[in-house]
């Protein structure tokens, strides 16, 4: 095993473990970012350049930021002093251990393990683009619709329930601004 893989794997797993175990929720998010970035590097090691950069752009640039903004909006920026986990937390841990143990043993027991990576070149962006516009065009459209719906839906769900219309809009044609005092 080469060093690069070991470092990447260690970063991914340590980041994930930190994200799941840290007491301070912002630390959870930042450790999660380490894990996401490590995965981007793993994608690059697997010579999936476009996916690696997309992973970095979406997860570090968007999802992580979304998470920390949500953390601040829900006032989660102090370390928690109450219990971190549900009461029978050993049960959840046991289930997780069982699942990952089963998967790992299945992997090690299968005949796939020795397969070497193919030496196909890094896929060009142009090929990906061509495929997106031909073979996967339906999926692309569906994802586009999904993202639009998610955008509108998220905005609606997070909107204040008293509605923005009742509140005075700051800065827009306010009665105070720009008018001489009578």
């Amino acid at each position: 095993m080469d060093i690069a893989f070991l470092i990447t794997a260690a970063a991914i797993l340590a980041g994930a473990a930190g994200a799941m175990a840290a007491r301070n929720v912002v630390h959870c998010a930042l450790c999660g970012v380490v894990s996401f970035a490590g995965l981007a590097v793993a994608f690059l090691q697997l010579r999936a350049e476009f996916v690696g950069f997309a992973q970095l752009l979406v997860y570090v640039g968007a999802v992580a930021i979304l998470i920390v903004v949500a953390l601040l909006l829900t006032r989660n920026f102090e370390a928690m002093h109450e219990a971190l986990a549900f009461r029978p937390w050993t049960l959840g841990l046991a289930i997780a251990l069982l699942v990952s143990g089963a998967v790992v043993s299945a992997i090690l027991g299968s005949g796939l393990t020795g397969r070497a990576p193919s030496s196909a070149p890094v896929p060009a962006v142009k090929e990906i683009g061509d495929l997106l516009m031909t073979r996967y065009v339906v999926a692309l459209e569906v994802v586009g619709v999904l993202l639009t719906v998610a955008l509108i839906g998220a905005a609606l769900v997070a909107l204040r329930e008293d509605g923005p219309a009742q509140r005075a809009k700051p800065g827009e044609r306010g009665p105070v601004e720009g008018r001489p005092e009578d």
Partner: protein
Amino acid sequence: MFDALDQLFVSLKHWLVGQLPAALQPWASLVISAAAILGVFMTLFALTVLIERKGLGRIQNRYGPNRVGPWGLLQPMADFIKMLTKEDIVPSGADRVVHFVAPLVMVVPVLLAYAVIPVGRNMAAVDFNAGLLFFFAVGACIELAVFMAGWSSRNKYSLLGGMRAIAQMISYELPLILSTLPVVMLAGSMSLVDITDAQGGHYGGWLARWHVFTPWGLAGLLLFTVAATAESNRAPFDLPEGESEIIAGHLVEYSGFKYALFFIGEYLGMFAVSALGITLFLGGWRAPVLWLEWVPSYMWFFLKLGGFVALFIWLRGTLPRLRADHLMNLAWKFLLPLVLLNAMSAALWHYTAQWTFAGAGLARWLLCASLVGVPYVVLGRRLFAGQHIGPRTYRMAA
């Protein structure tokens, strides 16, 4: 002769790498490129800080720094020594680890972004197939650094500044990325080297085929510049710093070398995004006219970079800071529709390339320009409608 001068640094690097054993050569090549990028852009940073201070001074009819060395040329050195010798203060309530890591997360991605920029003929450190995506992907890490700095300082001003910066950078990332879309569409590649190559050739045998000489390229460059100014947190979009209202925002609790790292990060980010704008719209390292081709390619690149930086300084000296809601309105209600229309204009430009009738060139130009220009006027008027603009009187003023 001119070719040798043009390729001087490339052949120097090849010669240096050739001196080493074969096993080390790929690494040596990377290290030399990284060292060159670091050296050149750090020097440029020092120069820019000085020129910015002097330029802003002249804009305000002052001298600017002129005491250290001849014409104040050693001022950056003095600043650097001052920064290094200052006390490194970490607030007692701060999150020490995150507070320490934040400046590094700021600088490292910015330096990585230079890897894909071709600063001259054959002078890109790495030619990724998805180079543009790489640029934006590492650029996205800066937002995280700003958040880390703002949150870890445990100071309400820094938190407010950090959140402002994140909101601003996310909002302007969209127009920034979308304004590069037409270029990618027409070049058919996300590699910055390919995009520069796509701008080769000449109109009418003398004027270079830069994208900026097309209607969508001109509009794209303007939109890109506005978004890039906001993305690099420069005036008039420097709300996150906002020294008069939130005392430098996420930088409040930073001092000494950590502050210097943030400062370096901001300036290097500005250069990087300018370099991207040059590569995408201004032909990268290409000469503007045929008879100036003999000037070395890297000279052209840095000349254009200097022009961009001068523009940024000029804008900073001219425009007052925007208000937060105006900032968001500009991004979402004005820039975003325009960049989308600009992409359509580029598509139209592409498909009208076959027109052959008399005056086709002019008609094509007007058509594509009006696709962006008319919405510019309409949108602008709509957004200004009902707003009172002009001299104001205030209640508290006597």
